[in-house]
């Protein structure tokens, strides 16, 4: 089966700062791949390049076999196939919760108004926020806003979901509700590439954990192997710092 995402030798620098130094990574259908690593290790940049929000300096990105790093690729069409959730939610404050969720369905995928409403409301029901459909995002708690942001990202049934440290801006007691939703997405078969600091959660949902260090993949493997018996000293050192 063709991998949903294939990253081949991805290089990205900001000036003299070499953030990604040749990343090779495949994500298979229905696989959940978790990126871990210290701040500045390149997790966020890798996700941004995947969605073409940053232009790579070298390498190749294939989405379901299509070369999306080709300058002739239709950027908007590529992004419409990938869902992204950001650290700071980035909901649209001038739109209601429902309109946030249905915006892409209406304006990018051009579905009929009726169908958008139904899909949006069904999705909000699934994340337990049907009652807030007509509210504006500012009325919601951080955890609720992030759940809406996830609903907005998955509304068009994207082939790939990118989650960029989606719990980092949340109060500790709100993290659980967001992570439970991600676990549910995994159950329903979503393909997910996510960056996180929540090692416990990575163990719970990841099919594979990738440890990034200084812009390269230092080590990768199933959670039990990578977290419990890391093969490399750097991995063990990082884990000892984040797990105390």
């Amino acid at each position, binding site marked *: 089966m063709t991998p949903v995402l294939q990253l081949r030798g991805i290089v990205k620098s900001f000036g003299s700062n070499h953030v990604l130094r040749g990343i090779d990574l495949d994500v298979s259908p229905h696989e959940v791949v978790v990126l871990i690593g210290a701040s500045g290790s390149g997790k966020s940049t890798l996700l941004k390049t995947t*969605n073409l*929000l940053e232009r790579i300096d070298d390498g190749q990105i294939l989405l379901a076999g299509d070369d999306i790093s080709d300058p002739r690729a239709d950027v*908007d*069409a*590529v*992004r*419409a*196939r*990938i869902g*992204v959730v*950001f650290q*700071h939610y*980035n*909901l*649209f*404050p*001038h739109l209601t919760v429902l309109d946030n969720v249905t*915006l*892409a369905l209406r*304006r*990018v995928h051009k579905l009929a108004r009726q169908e958008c409403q139904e899909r949006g409301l069904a999705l909000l029901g699934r994340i337990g926020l049907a009652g807030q459909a007509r509210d*504006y995002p*500012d*009325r919601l708690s951080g955890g609720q806003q992030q759940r809406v942001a996830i609903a*907005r*990202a998955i509304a*068009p049934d994207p082939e790939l979901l990118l989650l960029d440290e989606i719990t980092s801006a949340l109060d500790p007691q709100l993290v659980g509700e967001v992570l439970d939703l991600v676990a549910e997405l995994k159950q329903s078969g979503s393909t997910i590439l996510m960056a996180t600091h929540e090692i416990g959660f990575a163990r719970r949902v990841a099919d594979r954990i990738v440890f990034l260090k200084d812009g390269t993949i230092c080590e990768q493997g199933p959670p039990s192997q990578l977290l419990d018996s890391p093969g490399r000293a750097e991995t063990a050192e990082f884990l000892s710092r984040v797990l105390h």
Partner: protein
Amino acid sequence: MTGPSRHPGERRDLGAVSDLELGRRAYRRRQAARSIGISLLSTVVFAVVIGVVLVNSPGWQVTRDTFFNPEYFRQALPAVWQGLLLNIRVLAVAVVGVAVVAVAIAGIRSLKGPVFFPLRFLAAAYTDLFRGMPFLIVLYLIGFGIPALGLTDQVIPVTLLGTIALVLTYSSYVAEVLRAGIEAVHPSQRLAARSLGLSHYASLRLVVLPQAVRKVTPALMNDFVSMQKDVGLISVLGAVDAVRAAQIQVAQTYNYTPYVVAGLLFVALSWPFIRLTDWLTARQQRREQIGGLV
């Protein structure tokens, strides 16, 4: 009930209010009453002082008869009112023109990338030129310059020329206000919009502009009110608007009351919009923000 202290776990009866809170409320009521009293008093004193100075000034009798004559007021009102209707028509058309041109200019000025340099440059030159040039000069140049070109055999109506001049000048102001609003929308909003697959144009229209316009509504309405007055300047091209109508009356009677009539009508025209702005801004704040005590 004496105070807020209670046993742990005891449920609070929310219908009853503690004496402490009742005391605070009474104090706030007294403070509010005092503030209102002071401001009323100072307003009355101020009005009395102004009135006394006016009435006791040596030329008050003449001034009153020349500027505030009820007889001339009644006489001038119908003609000036007819003129104001022309102002309103010109304004209505010009507002639409300004909205279209200003959004286009602001959009062009917000384009990123070296490819768009010539467009950006032209847009910047446009706003620099028409913000710097006095509106009266623009009116003269358009009002007398365009007919001089002899593009058509027909006479171009002066109201049309005045409208063009208004659009040129005010779209450059409004474009700058909109651009400030566009830049005040956090880049992460555009990022989120693009990540959904919305095009640059769609992101601008559906996500950035609505937020930008909300941020600059007071400034936009301010420009609108200012435009409402400047419509009166089209009289210099010979259009019989409110100002011109007043001028004709003044020329016939040597009494300046018609100018006061025109002035008051312009104020009456703008007042509803000024109040509407305040109301809209307040409503929007209530809707999108849960306010604190600031």
